[in-house]
């Protein structure tokens, strides 16, 4: 079981950030169709699924951090 965050998709390659902050490339067809940039995905039993709750938690935390830095 591994968690990744989608950084971006280039043509048909999805670039995922690992839990260590490194990057790996996979075929974008392996991800659920509605995966958005910034979504946390779980790789389990050969399949990727979107973890919405975790994605939302991260979004909120980062948004707050960004807001605290606004000039």
């Amino acid at each position, binding site marked *: 079981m591994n968690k990744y965050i989608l950084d971006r998709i280039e043509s048909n390659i999805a670039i995922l950030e690992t*839990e260590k902050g490194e990057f790996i490339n996979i075929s974008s067809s392996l991800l659920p169709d509605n995966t958005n940039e910034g979504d946390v995905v779980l790789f389990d039993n050969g399949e990727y699924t979107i973890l919405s709750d975790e994605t939302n938690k991260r979004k909120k935390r980062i948004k707050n951090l960004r807001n605290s830095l606004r000039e």
Partner: protein
Amino acid sequence: MNNTIKKIKSSLILILIAVTAFFVGCAPFHFYQISEEENLLKIHFIDVGQGDSTFIELPDSTTMLIDAGEKSCGDIITEYIASQGYNKIDYLIATHPHSDHIGGMAKIVENFEIEKIYMPDVDTDTRTYETLLETIADNNLKIKTAKFGNYVIDSTDIKAKILAPVTIDEDNLNNSSVVIKLEYEDTSFLFTGDAELEELEAITEEVYADVLKVGHHGSVTSTNEDFLSRVNPSISVISCGKNNEYGHPHKEVMKYLKDYETDIYRTDEDGTIIVFSDGKNIVVETEIERGSYFE
């Protein structure tokens, strides 16, 4: 007889003048002389492999850095800027938070004195981006939101204006890229990040520029014939990695650029590319020596 000879002579002189004028007029940009060292604008398209990092030395010795490649490039970029004699970045611009543009930026914030930071009003959730924000916070710095129509620099002979994003696309960070047009007297430069055609077409301001940083590493998403004719660049620079997995620059874009007859430079073949301007003329140098003829 004498009159005929006189006529032939003056015709020959006219032809000689016309031919000379033709050749002088057609001399490639980079053969023009650049005046003294001072008051030069120098734009370094640093070879960071697959990604962007553009370091700009302004004529008044202030500096701008647009993007910082992947995380592994933070040290290379630091060394490069230090080797040019600078320990301060006056204007740090993150065009958009993809790893090939902001990966190395936390290192830059740690290693240099930073004056102002600009980012588009969009976030992502990666650890890479979060680390960058945390590093900015740890260094007691703030982030200015890059808004189109605003100037990053606005003085008599130098202007750097934000032309985009006109609208934010939260589901497509490329389309929220900060697009900046830099003008130094009679010369102009357009930096487009990874902006795709949808974003570029929404720009209402003049995008004409002598030098174009070709969007999105030469991907078809970001260049077409219409946009090229709007910019009308005599020099186009592509920043991408050797044998990258994405096919950058795409064949179609290379065809558009070649048909447009703009001088093409690319970091995967030329290494770091430096563009010099004295406000009137532009000269280009490449890290890797080019062959005796251009493609």
